[in-house]
């Protein structure tokens, strides 16, 4: 059983990471690899789409903390979108909405990069 998978799509200068399945201490390294590879390619405008993520534990939340400062130092951001209520509740319990912008849809998250000028600046 493939319990967790990711895929990445570039839309303009924003990279979208799509999460699918169960993100726990076993599968978190896969997402770490995704962030490392994007940073290696100088891709700092990142949206993470949670539509198909069914489960997250604190090990999964830790991945976002590991990369956020490096990404913001490079004038980028990690924006989160399309979470189920269940997954949002875990982020909320741990206070993550104070540190990360969370949007209902992927398009809203992408347009926020355009508003702040990050997309244009990187062109």
């Amino acid at each position, binding site marked *: 059983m493939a319990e967790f998978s990711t895929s990445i799509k570039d839309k303009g200068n924003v990279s979208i990471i799509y999460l699918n399945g169960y993100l726990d201490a*076993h599968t978190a390294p896969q997402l770490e690899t995704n962030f490392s590879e994007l940073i290696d390619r100088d891709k700092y405008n990142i949206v993470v789409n949670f539509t198909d993520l069914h489960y997250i534990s604190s090990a999964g939340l830790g991945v976002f903390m590991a990369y956020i400062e490096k990404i913001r130092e490079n004038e980028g951001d990690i924006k989160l979108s399309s979470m189920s209520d269940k997954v949002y509740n875990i982020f909320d319990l741990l206070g993550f909405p104070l540190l990360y912008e969370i949007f209902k849809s992927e398009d809203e998250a992408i347009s926020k990069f355009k508003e702040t000028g990050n997309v244009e600046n990187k062109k």
Partner: protein
Amino acid sequence: MKTKNNIDKKLKIQSRTENLSVIREFIQSAAEEVGMKPGVTEDVMLAVDEACTNIMKHAYKSYPDGEILLKLKYSDHKLTIIIVDYGNSFHPENVPDPDLQKYYRQHRVGGLGMYLMKTLMDEVSYNSVPGKYNEVYLTKYLNNSH
């Protein structure tokens, strides 16, 4: 499906993260047997995942062949999961509540799992006999609102 008033189950498993999904399925199947609502079941699964992840990382320091024993009991609308390991002893009093601003600066997190366990369960307690075993007790009460 008729729900059960009492269950008593055990799962013995090695301390490797690939087993976290097996642990969650064990909890889910028992929760269904006692008629727990899905939202509550998910909370219990996450709390048990966090406890076992902590054991794998800290008690066994990622050694994959340590033994973890889960004992699950349900009676009188009370579900208790006792998680036993034979690794390094643990001092919960030394773990502060999470401080995200600090973690942001340090690029790491710690204590999130323990905080989630406390928040999602009705009771959490620890019993450690150094050099012998450690136990985590997680309890959830099932009343009509659950």
